[in-house]
């Protein structure tokens, strides 16, 4: 750009009459490294403006809230893990297993007097609870002994539940692995990006 042209632009700039595009031209001129010596005293101003334009917030992560979907998935996964682990632990520790196991056979006995209109599950629970006190002490003792032995074996329902839990845990594990792999991959990209300026500097 000729001296007269840039001088005319500058005069309008000081008056606040230049457009944004004209102001970009002025900054480009003074930051190009080639300028008329008569205008040298204004170089620092436009270099300062250029530097200020390039100033960026360094703490990006600090300013960015977590993506809601990821946050929700993290919370859901945490809750699921706690629930499954807690259920598994209680199931192994609690003596209630035996009571539940004792009630189960009563559900299978025929109950002709039960009303048909009632919900079947509710009916079975009520009947099972009513049947329990009728049993003789010897029956209970025998049953308890048998169930204590059976608890060491794995019945089909337990095996099925275990399989489902294993599948659920495997799914959670796979998701976690996937997230970890993505993070490792991203870290690899960042390391590659870090190397680019070093090559240019070299």
């Amino acid at each position: 750009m000729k001296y007269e042209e840039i001088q005319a632009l500058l005069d309008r700039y000081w008056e606040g009459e230049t457009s944004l595009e004209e102001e970009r031209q002025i900054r480009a001129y003074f930051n190009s490294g080639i300028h008329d010596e008569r205008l040298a005293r204004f170089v620092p101003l436009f270099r300062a403006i250029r530097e200020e334009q390039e100033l960026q917030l360094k703490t990006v992560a600090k300013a960015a809230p977590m993506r809601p979907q990821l946050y929700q998935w993290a919370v859901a996964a945490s809750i699921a893990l706690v629930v499954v682990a807690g259920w598994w632990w209680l199931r192994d520790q609690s003596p209630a297993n035996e009571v539940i196991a004792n009630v189960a056979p009563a559900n299978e006995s025929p109950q002709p007097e039960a009303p048909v209109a009632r919900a079947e599950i509710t009916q079975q629970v009520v009947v099972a609870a009513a049947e329990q006190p009728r049993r003789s002490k010897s029956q209970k003792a025998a049953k308890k002994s048998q169930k204590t032995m059976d608890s060491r074996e794995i019945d089909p329902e337990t095996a099925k539940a275990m399989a489902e839990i294993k599948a659920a845990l495997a799914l959670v594990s796979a998701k976690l692995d996937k997230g970890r792999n993505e993070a490792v991959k991203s870290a690899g990209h960042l390391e590659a990006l870090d190397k680019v300026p070093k090559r240019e500097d070299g």
Partner: protein
Amino acid sequence: MTWAIFHEQVFPIRHKLYRFALRITGSVHEAEDVVQEVLEKVWKTAPEQIDNIQNWEAWCMTMTRNRSLDKTRSQSLRRAAPLDGVAERSSDQATPAQSAETRDLVDRAKAMMQQLPEKQRLVMHLRDIEEFSYEEIAEALNITLDQVKVNLHRARKSIREQMLNNL
């Protein structure tokens, strides 16, 4: 506030908000805190208020300005304080060919801009650094178009005189 609006319209202007906060507070740490607070406040914007916001950038700039001024006044920071951390960053970027004298002149030019009266300083910043239109400046600073033009003219005139006399 939805993630889409935040991600597409608010988060990308965080650097502008930071530079604006830095211009007002003169402190890197204060400016970072201001941006953090503004982004958190925007994120918690009530759904019924979101529909009324036409220009997120101007709205965020206004919030940044108000928060920065509150911070500056409450902590009695000196308005004309040099931009701490900025000179250090600039030195890091100086090329070997750039002499110490040139570096000093650039820093002095920055100090001149920083020492302008508040309104002139903010108008010149939004125009020359952020390349805002006059209308956008008026909206962000809640002043009239005439005030924008007058303050920009005075700011540039003041800088020009200082450069002719001192540099």
